[in-house]
């Protein structure tokens, strides 16, 4: 929005104050976000050895090599499998749980707290607990599954493929579905009751009411949740890194893990930056859609 030149001194004084108040934010932003962001793109044009930080300019060579490496494509596929798998579970579980919690449940607020807890607990804690649950010798999961006759022999949850990917997806769903629950629950509480009463009078059963009223009302918020969670799941590092470290071999290695490995285990900072930039470019699609969606909503208010 452009200001006309006719701004009064008072108006200009206010604008100046506004700029002073935002100045610390801008300063910090430039130092720790904007500068590193451009720096990452710049670094991706170099070959840099991490321990010495000595580098030489290689232009777009990193990118050229990157697309030829099968490791990149495998990691990208892993990222997509992980994101789509865990996101689907999060949404299904989350919406179902929100519907349950929306009902008149005994000790509803206690139930809500218990559901919410995994989301806020540290990933480190979550991973430690799950690794103990997954333990092949003494883990309770193997014990339970054997005792009900589901399996005959203890499963290797994290050390074999495709078990590792499935386990990671499950733990991801467990950790992050509460986000969906809370967001959907908040929206459910704003659906006007008369809508349901009107549908009842018109003869709609519970299932028809869900599909004709609840779901359309949730559509908007679900789109936002899916976008947001897709972005966050796509860039997830801690959970996967701590559970499997990308293994066995590289069967659960997603793009963020690849960037980390390249930079701090293989000591190739330039190449790692190139991976990071490509990864961000892929995410940009979702980010732009999300930002535009939010902007539209902001303006319509």
């Amino acid at each position: 929005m452009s200001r006309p030149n006719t701004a009064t001194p008072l108006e200009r004084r206010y604008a100046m104050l506004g700029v002073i108040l935002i100045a610390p934010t801008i300063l910090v932003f430039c130092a720790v976000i904007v500068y590193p962001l451009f720096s990452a793109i710049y670094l991706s044009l170099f070959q840099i050895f991490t321990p010495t930080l000595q580098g030489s300019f290689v232009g777009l060579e990193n990118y050229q090599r990157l697309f030829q490496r099968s490791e990149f494509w495998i990691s990208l596929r892993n990222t997509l499998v992980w994101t789509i798998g865990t996101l689907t579970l999060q949404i299904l579980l989350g919406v179902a749980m929100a519907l349950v919690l929306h009902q008149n449940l005994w000790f509803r607020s206690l139930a809500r707290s218990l559901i919410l807890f995994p989301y806020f607990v540290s990933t480190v804690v979550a991973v430690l607990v799950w690794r103990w649950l997954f333990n092949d010798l003494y883990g309770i999961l193997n014990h339970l599954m054997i005792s009900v006759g589901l399996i005959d022999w203890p499963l290797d949850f994290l050390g074999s493929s495709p078990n590792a990917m499935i386990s990671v997806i499950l733990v991801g769903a467990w950790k992050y579905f509460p986000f969906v629950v809370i967001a959907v629950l908040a929206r459910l509480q704003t659906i006007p009751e008369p809508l349901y009463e009107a549908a009842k009078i018109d003869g709609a059963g519970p299932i028809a009411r869900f599909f004709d009223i609840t779901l359309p009302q949730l559509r908007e918020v679900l789109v936002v949740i899916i976008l947001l969670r897709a972005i966050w799941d796509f860039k997830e590092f801690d959970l996967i890194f701590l559970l499997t470290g990308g293994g066995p071999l590289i069967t659960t290695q997603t793009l963020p893990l690849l960037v980390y490995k390249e930079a701090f285990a293989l000591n190739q900072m330039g190449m790692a930056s190139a991976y990071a930039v490509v990864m961000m470019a892929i995410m940009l699609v979702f980010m732009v859609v999300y930002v535009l969606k939010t902007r539209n909503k902001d303006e319509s208010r």
Partner: protein
Amino acid sequence: MTRRILFNLFAWSIVLAVAFPLFWMVVTSIKPQFELFRRPPTILPETVTFEHYWRLLKETNFLIYFRNSVVLSVATTVTVVSIATLGAYSLVRFRYRGRESLAFLVLFTYLLPSVVLIIPLYLMLVTLGLANSILSLVIAYTTFALPYALWLLRSFMAGIPEDLESAALVDGASRLGAFWDVILPQLLPGIISTALFTFILSWNEYLFALVLINSDSARPLTTGVMNMLVSSFNIEWSLLMAASVMMSVPLIIVFAFLQSYLTRGFGAGGVKG
């Protein structure tokens, strides 16, 4: 009535299944070592012991890590929330060129992956000679905490009626006077919410701590406890579970007393329906 009971049983069995890993964490942490390897496992411990907690505090670096995490999270929270409160006030209640674009830059950075920023940040902090210090982590944590706090506070700020500020101006307050007298008290619940979120985010952060810190004197809980897992010969699960419980103590306190602030933050943080 039976339908209600059945529904409740069904719902609660799901809730308990979701909460089971956390229950198991607590149970494991208070079982004696020998009971851990019993087959079949005991659901409730036969003997309750706090020896693992005692050993955790006495024989490991846990207390140092805990202190580092507290210092780190408090410092990050205070810095980020103060900067973001002023910034949010400016973004919502002032008019100047570029304000809208700035607001969406904030939203954009809020979605930015940490792995993109971590390499240049690492280089920057090494050059500045700050690596391996708590300060370096505070700086690194602002990269995700500041956009988050700004975005949250911005929508809390937008919820305060503009008339209140106008009334204060007419009553003789300056812009900053109105901010202090009228807006800040109204914003307080939002500030608490944002501070809790920022604190929890910092408390739980792992990647930056992994890359930027490699000495025990500055290491926070996340990487510290993970190190205990990796560095020991035989994994002592009871000890690790005790560490996990202790590490979750601040969170449990927040959950017990301040949970409404957490759910309020959800509504403000980008998922408004």
